[in-house]
């Protein structure tokens, strides 16, 4: 019931600004004060060093040696070096596989599956399943890497024991697949929780009216569930993609090997910056990761927000 629209000047009437109109009466000033501590910490310990990293990416800075004493700006040399380095492209490709396989497909699908089958269940089964899934998420990586080495070990691995197989070495023969499955195991909890909450927001009546129309499970998902949880899918995809892009845990499992077959970008940066001491180059690669993340984020936003 829109009424006549007034010229905008009226809005700036002095009275209207005397105090704020949001629910809690915060007002911009106080809202600013609420945001301030977080923003201060973020600016100081996040934005500032992040910009510094971007700057380092333009230098030949190293941890040791002459370049450590007197680093020089080298412009985009590092970027040129990265973009012409097959190892970088290898890592980029592996990272895509890793993010796509373990996060975008693996965690999202498994997380959703778990949330879906547990959605209106209560009792011990739900608690046990959810507890185990979340356990995999909260255990420290250092511990978790041992667990998976023990699981996948070529000689004594639990998997070999279970399969009664000998010399089956997933980490060597299918290294990428191994770390993808590992990361699915590790990260499904977050998606499960997010989708669990999202599914709570799908009105049961919508599902039921699809069921009454005779819709199959898949049709219900497509026609009812997915349109409702689109926003959550976006948040979830964005966060887990970012996290997976920067996930360093595979290093603990495979050390990037064998022969660089699992040297995802985060590991690549680790090896370049920490083991090789080439901080300038490492920072440049980090910058490239940032740009890729940006593209991915924009892609998700386009994909999921545009249809609204």
């Amino acid at each position, binding site marked *: 019931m829109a009424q006549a629209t007034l010229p905008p000047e009226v809005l700036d009437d002095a009275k209207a600004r005397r105090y704020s109109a949001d629910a809690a009466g915060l007002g911009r000033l106080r809202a600013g004060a609420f945001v301030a501590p977080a923003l201060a910490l973020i600016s100081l310990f996040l934005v500032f060093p992040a910009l510094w990293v971007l700057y380092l990416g333009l230098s030949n800075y190293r941890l040791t040696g002459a370049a450590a004493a007197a680093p020089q700006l080298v412009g985009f040399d590092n970027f040129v070096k990265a973009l012409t380095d097959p190892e970088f492209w290898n890592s980029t490709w592996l990272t895509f596989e890793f993010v796509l396989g373990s996060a975008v497909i693996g965690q999202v699908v498994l997380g959703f599956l778990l949330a879906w089958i547990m959605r209106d269940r209560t009792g011990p089964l739900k608690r046990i399943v959810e507890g185990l899934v979340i356990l995999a998420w909260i255990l420290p990586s250092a511990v978790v890497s041992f667990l998976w080495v023990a699981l996948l070990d070529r000689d004594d691995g639990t998997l070999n024991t279970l399969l009664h197989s000998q010399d089956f070495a997933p980490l060597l023969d299918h290294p990428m697949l191994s770390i993808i499955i590992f990361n699915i195991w590790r990260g499904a909890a977050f998606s499960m929780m997010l989708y669990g909450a999202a599914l709570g927001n799908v*009105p049961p009546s919508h599902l039921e*009216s699809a*069921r*009454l*129309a*005779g*819709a199959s499970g898949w049709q219900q998902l497509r*026609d*009812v569930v997915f349109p409702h949880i689109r926003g959550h899918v976006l948040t979830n995809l964005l966060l887990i993609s970012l996290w997976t892009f920067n996930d360093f845990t595979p290093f603990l499992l495979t050390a990037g090997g064998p022969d660089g077959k699992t040297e995802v970008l985060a590991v690549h940066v680790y090896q370049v910056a920490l083991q090789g001491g080439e901080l300038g180059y490492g920072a440049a690669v980090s910058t490239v990761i940032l740009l890729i993340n940006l593209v991915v984020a924009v892609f998700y936003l386009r994909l999921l927000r545009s249809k609204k």
Partner: protein
Amino acid sequence: MSAIELRGLTKVYPGGVKALDSLDLAIPDGEFFALLGPSGCGKTTLLRTIAGLETATGGAVVIGDRDVTGLQPGARDIAMVFQDYALFPHMNVTDNIAYPLRIKKVGRAARQQKAAEVGARLGLEQLMDRRPGQLSGGQQQRVALARVMATQAQAFLFDEPLSNLDARLRLEARTFLKKLQHELGVTTVFVTHDQAEALAMADRMAVMESGHIRQIGTPAEVFQRPANTFVAGFIGSTPMNLLDGVVRADTLEVTGCKLAVPQSAEGLLHDGEKIVYGVRPEYNVYSAEPVDGSLGGNVSIVENLGASYLVTLDVNGVLVQAVVPEGHEPAIGDEGYALPRRDRALIYRDGELVSA
């Protein structure tokens, strides 16, 4: 179009709540049947069990000549309108209406055609491309109806389809829905907690209380002769006066007043027994002057009902209500007298109607 029959239907929820207690009900083909009852009495559960959205713990659901108790909801050939309409927010009106047909694998053109047809019938022609979010409540409700009509199901189930509308729209929708059902002739079960709605719309109605049916009948039967005090208190736009009383020979003593025995209970009462005297405010004739056999007291509240007033008298500490036509309404504090109509007053013994 088929009859619906429930045999000994029982539904116990996992927590142990017995929402339906071996309930029998037969709804003939084409009837517009209302289920009425207070919140939590099991109306929705009953509807959902008919639809197959809840599995029955015991008993059977028969639709037409098929026992559908073990069938999936999609296989029961029924359609349901939910309280919140359950329109898919991401589909436009056409797609919403056509959705059941899409699931039934009807071709695109045929679906669109059917949706347009049904939509036109419900006056939605102009809105077919809008999303539900761009519709008013009343329009949404019509889309939900259209979607149900598009299915050509054997029976319609409505769960409080009007309760989300504002008061004005509700009245319009009532009339509209009633008329539509009349034309389509589809067996319809309609859940509401608004007694006025049930009275106005239903061919027959059932009043439920905690999983049991307390009375089944036409609206007039239920309104005029509630079978028990529960129904009596529940039906009527103003609650029935239910007053404790004692039989004293040929008269009744009710809150200190002497009243005549109602016609319906004549010869059925025993001297000295305790009864409940029930009379609707509409059947309480008000006068400002003392009248024999009336309930006298001071006016404590006067409420405007539009063309009449609801006057509440304080009769020796008990509140008694009477409907007074406009122009005759008293002021608060006035003395007033309510004379129950003998042909309409009722007597309840142990909560049940005393009747020949």
